[in-house]
């Protein structure tokens, strides 16, 4: 049974970063996002233990769906909490990044990272699932309960927006 645990650990090492990236769209902080990932992994574990599922690690689309659901729940409770604590101002952690540029000195990559983080939730989650999750538009459509065409449209629109953002950033840099 030790092997069984090891399989899940290897799966977590392989997929943890992309799950975390997706969860960042729902968690206010990195810690919140990691909690969402952990919650999803726990739910998936129990789900996969049920009959006929063999206890193996789940397919990614299912985990994305679970994180999204957990994120929605978190948002609801956050919204209620914010109403109670409107006077508190939260400061951003500027060192807390969602994506690591492969080349740290590549300024375009850094700007692109910021542009991805600034995408609207609807566009960003499609980009994340497609680019780093490796999901097809059909799988994304199931996760988001939208049509595959809508998923593809959002993806193209997100690419277009990122292209424009990057172009604008370059122009501002050289101005």
């Amino acid at each position: 049974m030790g092997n069984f645990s090891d399989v899940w650990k290897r799966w977590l090492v392989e997929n943890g970063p992309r799950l975390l990236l997706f969860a960042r769209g729902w968690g206010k902080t990195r810690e919140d996002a990691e909690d969402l990932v952990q919650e999803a992994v726990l739910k998936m574990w129990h789900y996969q233990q049920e009959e006929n599922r063999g206890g193996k690690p789940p397919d990614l689309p299912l985990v994305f769906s679970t994180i999204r659901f957990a994120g929605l729940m978190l948002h609801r409770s956050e919204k209620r909490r914010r109403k109670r604590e409107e006077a508190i101002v939260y400061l951003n952690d500027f060192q807390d990044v969602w994506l690591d540029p492969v080349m740290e000195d590549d300024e375009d990559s850094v700007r692109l990272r910021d542009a991805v983080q600034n995408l609207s939730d609807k566009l960003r989650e499609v980009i994340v699932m497609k680019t780093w999750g490796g999901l097809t538009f059909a799988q994304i459509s199931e996760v988001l309960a939208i049509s595959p065409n809508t998923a593809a449209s959002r993806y193209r629109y997100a690419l277009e927006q990122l292209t424009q953002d990057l172009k604008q950033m370059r122009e501002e840099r050289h101005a």
Partner: protein
Amino acid sequence: MREADRYDAMEKALLQLMPAALSETAQAGMEAQLDELSGSAEVLRHGFPHWAKWLGGIAAAVTIGVFAFPFGSQESAPLVGIAEDDGMVVITELDRVEKVLDEGLFVDAGGSAVRKMSVRVIGESRILDEETGIEVTLTEPRREMVLLPVSTF
């Protein structure tokens, strides 16, 4: 630049960004949780529930056997059946009376005479798990007390 080429260039640029890893604390926490869950799954998969399925069916059959067995060192008739909804096939169920000890006459609470018999029974069940093909023989020794009304002396 064509639209498709622009998208292609952007997709390549995106792949230059790698999702940040889970923090060491989170990774370690989740791995510890997986170990813990795995331990409980060990029990769940190979311990109580697995055997409980078998024992549950056997218990019922054994109970029937106890009340139906004839005294003496003989075997009751084999029972063959299919346990419900769990894929376990009961191949044979036997209640073997190993030893009968006459503990003498007693008077029960109603004033009637009874003969008290101490019976050692060995319950044996052969069960086949259709899913895995594993066949297991379960043996359950037990001691029963039987009170027989005595009408003649």
